[in-house]
Structures are given as structure tokens and as C-alpha cells.
């Protein structure tokens, strides 16, 4: 099949410049592309080695009566975790909206993806606020919130995330935060993370691969 394609191109007017070594190399390239298509699909997002363990990170779930929530997926599921805040008009809604699209495109398997949003701005994000926000994107989404800064910082550190909150002289609050989505499996490891701007379809593909591994 591969050599057929190469012969095809040799028949085109450009065929004159297709020397034997060129044909040989292009056949090899084509063959490896075709082989690649047959092999295991690879993750498009960022994979960290060793996979960071976050299964011991626990934060109160404002959407579940402040009960402690461990950031670990249930059996056969994937938990997607994000650090953000509700006053964020651009990055956070864009990310949540893209993730929602990605999960919707999984069809029935979308039920096997759980989402937890950790607020880095607990002072302004009241429990009601953060719950309403998260659940406007995901009906069963978890709104994780703690006013214990040390506890939040420990969570941030475990994920290798970052955040900062500063208040200007005029009272303007500036928030910075990691704009990554983390996909955690049922052993509590981050299998893949998606930076801001990852296309929903790429997340869908990665989620399909991860969910297949979970079953």
C-alpha cells in the first residue's frame, strides 16, 4: 500500500525529481505514519513523570455540606480538577465551558467524568457562590473551598499549581492562578493535564483513552 502511493506520486509531472533514495525515504515515512495510525493512541495533554500523587488532598466540599472531599476519582472514573475563582471573567469560564463541551462529546461515558473546582479566592467566593458557579457548568460538580490558607496551599503544592491574591491600594483584588485542568484517576495520580487553550476535542480524545484504561 505504501509503495503504491509512492508510485502514484512518481507518475505526476514532478516524478522527474523523485530519485530512488527519495522514493525509498518517502515510502519509509509513509509506512511509519500508517503503522502509527494502528498503534495505541497517545495522550495529547501534558504527562508528568512520575505521575504526581494527589489522592491525599482533601478539601471541604461546599456543594456537599462542607464534607471533606478527597481529590481521587471513583472506580472506573476520572476526576478533573481546576483551581480558579468565580470573579474570573475570561480564563475560568472559557476553561469550564471547553471542559463541558469535551465531557458532553463523550456521550454516555461523560457520566464517568467528575469535576472539582477549587477556589483560590475563598474570601469572595462564598460557599453558595462557588457551588452555584460550578454547578452551572456541571450539575454534580464539586465546589471545594477552605478559608484555611495553609490547607489550600498544601493542595496547590501537591498539584504543582500556583496562585496569588493581592489587593491594591484602591482595593482592587488581583488574582493569579494556574490555568490547568488536571485529570486524576482512581489511584489518585494526575495522568494528564491540559493547559489553557487545549481544544475540547483534544480533551475528549484524552478522556477516552483514560477511561478505557480505567475499565
Amino acid at each position, binding site marked *: 500500500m505504501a509503495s503504491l502511493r509512492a508510485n502514484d506520486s512518481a507518475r505526476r509531472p514532478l516524478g522527474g525529481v523523485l530519485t530512488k533514495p527519495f522514493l525509498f525515504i518517502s515510502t519509509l515515512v509513509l509506512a511509519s505514519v500508517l503503522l502509527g495510525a494502528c498503534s495505541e493512541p497517545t495522550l495529547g495533554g501534558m504527562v508528568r513523570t512520575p505521575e504526581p500523587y494527589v489522592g491525599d488532598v482533601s478539601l471541604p466540599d461546599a456543594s456537599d455540606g462542607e464534607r471533606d472531599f478527597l481529590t481521587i476519582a471513583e472506580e472506573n472514573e476520572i476526576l478533573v480538577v481546576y483551581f480558579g475563582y*468565580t*470573579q*474570573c*471573567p*475570561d*480564563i475560568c*469560564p*472559557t476553561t*469550564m*465551558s*471547553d471542559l*463541558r*463541551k469535551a465531557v458532553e462529546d463523550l456521550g454516555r461515558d461523560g457520566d464517568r467524568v467528575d469535576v472539582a473546582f477549587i477556589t483560590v479566592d475563598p474570601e469572595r467566593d462564598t460557599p*453558595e*457562590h*462557588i457551588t*452555584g*458557579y460550578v*454547578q*452551572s*457548568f456541571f450539575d454534580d460538580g464539586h465546589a471545594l473551598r477552605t478559608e484555611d490558607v495553609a490547607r489550600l496551599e498544601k493542595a496547590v503544592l501537591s498539584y*504543582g*499549581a*500556583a*496562585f*496569588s491574591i493581592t489587593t491594591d491600594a484602591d482595593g482592587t483584588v*488581583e*488574582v*493569579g*492562578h*494556574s*490555568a*490547568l485542568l488536571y485529570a486524576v484517576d482512581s489511584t489518585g495520580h494526575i495522568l494528564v493535564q491540559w*493547559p*489553557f*487553550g487545549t481544544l475540547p476535542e483534544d480533551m475528549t480524545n484524552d478522556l477516552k483513552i483514560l477511561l478505557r484504561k480505567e475499565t
Partner: protein
Amino acid sequence: MRRGLLLVLTLSALVAACSGGGGIEVDDPWARTSASSQNNGAVYMVIKGGDTADRLIEVSVPTSVAAVTQIHESMMTEDEDGEDMMMMQEVGSIDIPADGEAVLEPGGFHIMLMQLAEPLEVGNEFTVTLTFETADQVDVTVEIREG
């Protein structure tokens, strides 16, 4: 045949010259629906420059939409440990290059609506007034879209 083509070219050049005050044109202005309990929103669009470079210096919406409107930019920075962090800051203006365009899009420049009067819902629209350094003010109708 050739004369016909020339006429068409001349006419289209004239039409192009007439459109838009000062040559600024705005494409595809939109805002995302706001989630429940979300106080702020963002407006995106593509601003196409005219013959000369210009700058977007002020933006406003009616108070029935939001209390404060500012030009913002989201940008990637690093914290002291070298971790990537997304920050957002107010910028005084956005350059509109001559014959080029300024793109306001998620993760970059955007018009930030603060203290939304009502949630932004699909089917509604509102007006943003853009003030430029040189070109005439432009009112654009912003379409609200689902995520």
C-alpha cells in the same frame, strides 16, 4: 471585458472607502453566557484597522448591563517558584495596526464587564461603545452565546 472589470474594481474601491468611520471595522462581537453567581463577564471581537494606526482607548456599556467596563488582558506569568500562572490586568489601550487587526479573544485581550446587572443570557444582546484615539466612536451589538 477589461473595461467592465475596471468598473467593478473602481466601484468596490469606492464602497470600501465609504464603509466604517475612519476605516475601523468590528467583526464578530460576542460574550459568553455568565454562570450563575458570576459577577463579571468578558466581551470578545476582532477590530480591523483602517489606513492609519489607531488605538482603542475606552470602552463602555449601559449601566443596565454592568457597572464598570475596562480593557483587560489575560497573560501567562510565573510565580516565584517558576510555576506558570495566568494573571489578568487592566490595560490602558489596545493598538489597532493600520490595515491589520486587534484580536480580543479568550486568554488574551478582552473587554471586562464588572458587576453585571443581570446574568448574560443567550438570545439577549447589548451595545458596547468603543472609543478610539483617532477614529469615530463605534457602537457594536454584542451577541451572547452559550459557552
